[in-house]
């Protein structure tokens, strides 16, 4: 069996959340600098030329929405990495409990190409029914992830509104329920 060489570069939800807070603080600082330039008649970089206060606030609101989108995508990718690493480690360790046995069967058939949603999470749902809600919530949020990852060219039907906090809660809840640590 050829084993995957783990990079060790996967990011934890906690790291991503901290990164988001740092960048958001930096964006707020940049927004304050531009507003102070407006209030004090100072010059600014070209993209901000001739903006009113409302234009500046709109500009940064869009930047913050974009930041939330990209961080949401990264959080969901981080969960996928954690679940796939757990899947492969269970296969390599040849553990005896039922989830690991099912994963070995899956690995024989599909190896690393096993689908996260159709194969791995399906097994988790069957073997650990108490996780159903957490998995369903994650799979519903995956519509947002697919939309972001594939270039947003269609109008997504998400079924609910997501923001960074809801994505973080869904991601963290799933890893807790599956007892997967990062």
């Amino acid at each position, binding site marked *: 069996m050829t084993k995957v060489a783990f990079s060790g570069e996967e990011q934890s939800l906690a790291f991503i959340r901290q990164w988001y807070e740092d960048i958001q603080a930096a964006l707020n600082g940049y927004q304050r600098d531009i507003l102070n330039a407006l209030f004090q008649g100072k010059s600014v970089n070209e993209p901000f*030329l*001739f903006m*009113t*206060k409302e234009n500046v606030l709109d500009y940064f609101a869009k930047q913050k929405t974009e930041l939330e989108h990209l961080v949401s995508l990264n959080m969901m990718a981080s969960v996928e990495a954690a679940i796939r690493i757990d899947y492969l480690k269970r296969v390599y360790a040849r553990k005896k409990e039922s989830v690991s046995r099912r994963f070995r069967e899956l690995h024989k058939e599909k190896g690393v190409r096993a689908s996260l949603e159709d194969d791995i999470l399906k097994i988790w749902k069957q073997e650990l029914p108490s996780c159903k809600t957490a998995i369903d919530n994650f799979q519903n949020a995956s519509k947002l992830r697919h939309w972001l990852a594939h270039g947003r060219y269609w109008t997504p039907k998400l079924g609910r509104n997501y923001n960074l906090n809801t994505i973080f809660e869904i991601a963290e809840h799933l890893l807790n329920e599956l007892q997967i640590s990062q």
Partner: protein
Amino acid sequence: MELETFFRHKKARYENQRVTINREEQQKIWLTGLNQLYAEINDWLSVPIQEQIVIVSYEETTLVEDFVNPYLVKNLCINVGTESVILKPMGMNVLCAAGRVDMVGEEGIIMLVLLKPETGEYQWHIVIRTTHNQYFPLVKESFTDALAQVMRKDD
């Protein structure tokens, strides 16, 4: 921090910002510039107005801006056939300009900004937004080009 202290601090900050610039003088420059812009446009349009091809009308609107009380200005509407172009004063609190008027047509918006060159008087400029902002003095020819850009393209 107590609520009262928090807001007193905010108010003090606002006052500091307000007095960094002579706001009355700033408003005077802006409103004078706006009047000159409208006078100039009326001058450029005098022939089509006389020939009753174009009708110019005004509508009053209130601008609410930081550091000054709300004040009245006029939108200038250029009406021709079934179309109109509206010049909307956006205000004097604009980054790197003494004021901005947006020229709004059916097919676009172009910004006009009041700039002071290093030497000389304040002058209106037309802003062309490409990868870099470019701005040119507003004269009859560039005004005509701007109208053609924001108005309906005829077949």
